[in-house]
């Protein structure tokens, strides 16, 4: 037998064993659904603007997961879908903490301004008040 034939057979054999080992994963439809919902939720929370990197990563991985599903590469689809989910969740959490942080900063600024005003006000009549 010549070498090319051997090699071909070896490769086919390895591939079939590998395929046999990996072909036991069912299609991760549930996970892909969860990930799709997570991405939508994060989008609604304003994550694309407030956590762009994480959102891009989530969307990208979700797209690749869907492609893997189409080509029946279920292991790959599961992995990508799982990562898309945590990316989307992180993006949403970043967006929320960003908003809360802004609100806190605005409120603290408003309080500071109010305190200054009141300090000014109390100084004016203080000059006339008997001590």
């Amino acid at each position, binding site marked *: 037998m010549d070498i090319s034939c051997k090699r071909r057979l070896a490769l086919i054999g390895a591939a079939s064993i590998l395929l046999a080992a990996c072909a036991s994963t069912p299609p991760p439809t549930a996970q892909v659904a969860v990930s799709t919902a997570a991405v939508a939720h994060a989008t609604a929370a304003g994550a694309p603007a407030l956590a762009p990197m994480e959102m891009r990563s989530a969307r990208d991985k979700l797209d690749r997961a869907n492609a893997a599903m189409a080509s029946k590469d279920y292991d790959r689809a599961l992995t990508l879908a799982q*990562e898309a989910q945590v990316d989307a*969740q*992180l993006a949403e959490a*970043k967006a929320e903490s960003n908003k809360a942080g802004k609100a806190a900063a605005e*409120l603290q600024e408003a*309080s500071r301004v*109010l305190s200054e005003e009141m300090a000014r*006000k109390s100084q004016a009549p203080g000059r006339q008040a008997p001590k």
Partner: protein
Amino acid sequence: MKTRHLLPMTMLALAVVAGCSSVPLNNANLDAAHNDYRVAQNNPQTRDGAPVEMKQAADALALADASLARRDRMAEVDHLAYLAKSRVALAQEVGRQKAAEVAVTEANAARDKARLAARTDEADAAQRNAASSQRQADASQAQSEASQRQAANARQQTAAAQQQAAMSQQQTNDANVRAMQLEEQLKEMNAKKTDRGMVVTMGDVLFDTNRAELKSGGLRNVEKLGGFLKQYPQRKALIEGFTDSTGSDGTNQALSGRRADAVRTALVGMGVGSERLATHAYGEAYPIAGNDSADGRQLNRRVEIVLSDDSGNILPR
């Protein structure tokens, strides 16, 4: 063909499979994930603010560790490490969000407290103003009451002064009236002003010659005198008798004395106290006219009654 190539194919397959599992016991990404977890665990904001998320991250790390221990493919361990790392980052974000929410709550509370303090200060200031205005009002009221009392006092004093003035006026009037009455009476008695006091002279015609009994005219004079002395009880009278030079000194002395006594007796008889009446007999002494003419001698034959002043004093001759 199959039987001849089965052994090499199987050995190749095994080699491939074995090649998949020949991974080291360390995975850089998993180490990084563990590091991130430690950092998050040491951050109180994350540890206390996102305990659920930290638990999920710990579970993800355990899965990754188990995969590494099983010597799974590197790609699998990397994937699980990535999931764990993301979960740690998620916990950090949740911690940050909780802290911001707490800050918002605290800021609201602080703002409400500051507003309340400002309102309380305003209220206190208003109250102080009100109190000081009240004190001013009270002071003004006290002043006006004091002024009113002063005015009432002044009115009282004016009324009293007016009363006094009226009384003084009345007294003056009374005194005037009395003085006029006195003048009238003295005029009626023909009293003459001398440096010893008012003197009433009763002339010779009021006695008979060489006699000491008062005639009716003399009695009338005595009546006037008596009325005067009774009206002015503080006054006294000194009754002095005089004769002309005819006859002896002794006779004249006696006669003048008797005439003075007659006047005195008449006055006492009218009710004038005898202690107020003194007599003196001068006889021929102190003539008031020349004794060489009949008229002169007549004039010298007299009784003089010296009236004291208000306090009863009579200056001696």
